[in-house]
């Protein structure tokens, strides 16, 4: 992360609120709307203070009408405004697919550049405390499938602010996928306005033995895995893709050519997902490791099931630092049946998380 002045430790939600507030002050075509954005809970605090500062014309709650409200965002964007539409869970975006994909993603192309759709869709992936089948989905892979859309997934407060600003200024529909467990995570965030480039991955920790690409919350779990692996003398390079579409295959490709091994850990299902895309792209390019051998690849992600509610099943639904480390260990040691598992570690954002929501 580049060094900018006036850094403060901020929670991700505060960084998001700050980004919106600064952009709304800078550009009066920006407005923010969605269910519950203007209540006292303020979407975990991520919209806090905006109503007081900008009034109900520029931040307002809506009826429960995700489909039409997405259309309203599309239309307002076509007219030159810069709407930010907020969903408190990504699962509800399934109600907005028609507008997002049939209109939002296509208008600029279909109308041959005459119209732009500079809109932002914020949505949060739920997890823990029994979010269950319908409040825990991460649908980025579906959205990544569609030309015309951009998708980003900040995993820390710094990126959250910089991506939010970049997304607002982008002239295309940008989906910002947040993660409920990361809402309160703190990072140093500059006071100034800055953009985090959409389309650039970030190397979170350098390493030589294996590349681990961790998406959204799995970037955090991958860092945990890297720590476990270090104790075994394995040096993992952890990459946070930050931007999912466009995806920075160059950074990933460079890393795997150095390590010769790639483990993609998606915060989502595998089938036809981001992890498939990355593995396919590496294979298609025929990338090789330092030994000249093809890069060895593997992927992890949500179990190929619906998400169960009870914690003891949920624990097996998601990869975690230990299972990621174990998989990486097998790959590095070239022992596919090795059963080494790191000791139980702490996952404060999970262990400390208590709903009710």
């Amino acid at each position: 992360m580049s060094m900018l002045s006036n850094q403060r430790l901020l929670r991700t939600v505060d960084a998001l609120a700050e980004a919106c507030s600064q952009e709304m002050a800078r550009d009066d075509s920006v407005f923010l709307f969605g269910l519950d954005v203007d209540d006292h809970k303020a979407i975990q605090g991520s919209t806090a203070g905006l109503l007081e500062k900008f009034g109900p014309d520029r931040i307002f709650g809506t009826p429960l009408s995700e489909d039409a409200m997405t259309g309203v965002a599309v239309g307002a964007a076509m007219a030159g405004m810069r709407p930010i539409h907020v969903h408190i869970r990504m699962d509800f975006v399934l109600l907005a697919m028609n507008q997002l994909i049939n209109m939002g993603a296509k208008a600029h192309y279909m109308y041959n550049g005459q119209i732009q759709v500079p809109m932002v869709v914020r949505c949060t992936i739920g997890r823990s405390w029994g979010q269950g089948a319908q409040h825990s989905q991460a649908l980025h892979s579906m959205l990544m499938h569609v030309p015309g859309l951009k998708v980003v997934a900040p995993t820390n407060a710094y990126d959250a602010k910089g991506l939010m600003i970049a997304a607002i200024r982008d002239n295309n529909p940008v989906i910002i996928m947040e993660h409920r467990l990361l809402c309160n995570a703190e990072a140093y965030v500059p006071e100034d306005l800055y953009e985090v480039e959409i389309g650039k991955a970030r190397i979170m920790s350098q390493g030589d033995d294996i590349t681990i690409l961790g998406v959204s919350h799995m970037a955090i779990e991958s860092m945990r895995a890297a720590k476990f692996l270090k104790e075994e003398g394995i040096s993992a390079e952890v990459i946070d893709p930050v931007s999912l579409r466009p995806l920075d295959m160059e950074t990933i490709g460079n890393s795997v050519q150095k390590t010769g091994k790639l483990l993609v850990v998606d915060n989502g299902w595998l089938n036809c997902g981001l992890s498939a895309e990355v593995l396919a792209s590496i294979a298609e390019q025929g990338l090789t490791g330092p030994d000249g051998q093809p890069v060895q690849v593997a992927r992890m992600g949500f179990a190929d099931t619906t998400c169960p509610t009870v914690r003891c099943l949920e624990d097996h639904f998601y990869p975690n630092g230990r299972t990621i480390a174990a998989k990486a260990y097998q790959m590095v040691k070239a022992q596919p049946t090795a059963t080494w598992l790191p000791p139980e570690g702490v996952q404060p954002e999970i262990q400390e998380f208590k709903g009710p929501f």
Partner: protein
Amino acid sequence: MTQPELVQSLYQTMHLVRRFEEKLVELYPSDKIKSPIHLSIGQEAVAAAVCAPLNQDDIISNTYRCHATHIAKGGNLNAMMAELYGKATGCAGGKAGSMHLVEIESGILGASAVVGTTIPVAAGYALALKNEAKKTGEQRVVTAMFGDGSTEEGCFAETINFAVLHKLPILFVCENNEMAIHNPIERRQAISIQERVKPYGMPMGHVTSGDVFEMHDEVTRLTESVRAGNGPAFIEIETHRWLEHVGPNNDDDAPYRNPADLKKWKENDQVARLAEMLGTEKTAEINAHVEELVAESVTFAEQSAFPTKEELYTHVYA
């Protein structure tokens, strides 16, 4: 059912709902129930009234705020509590939790946490029951529960139109607590639900009094109309949520609350009212039974095992 029997029956249901949920309030800080709970405390009368005219093989379709109707429709209390604990003995083996309670043998269609989704699903079930009745001669009915907020989703308008067009055996019940999370209805809806629905010409009811007997009479009248093959009916029942939207706490002083409303509705508490009607002796008897049921459900849940990890992979496909 005689009037005293009705009073007793409604009281027992409402009190059971109330006590079950008060038990949840008590248990929740122990973190044994790890799932969002949307309580119906204050709204029990609706569930009791709505389920009263239903047979076991009639169907009720629920939202995430489903404890009250789950109980009122006759859901197994032990399996319900076990589900909230996430136990293998739960009504869905721990996979559902509070937001997706289900018990098809009691006519309880699974609940959904996505607002509005169950409305067309309930209509689809009703379509099947209309079909079934042509063969059996017996019309089972579907009661579709939903909140005021659901009526803003496009699928509500789509479903109402379809149900009227096909004369489906469904009673739409809008449980209007005038809130969607913290967002008051007047900031979400340009006109009243009554005004919007009236033109469809369904038999309609609108209970604003909070009076469980009025609810009961209206729901009964409309359910029987549906059962008689007259097509869908619609009722809106005004009520009030006493606790926070999700979770076990009061949020009396949250800015979205109007304290006068809360006070008015608490003074209009139907559980207390019916207890008084029944007299201390009868009430004590019922209460004792209810306490046993609730306590038993907790014991059952606590003593049950969690599902084994193999369960993660069962029932992905039928």
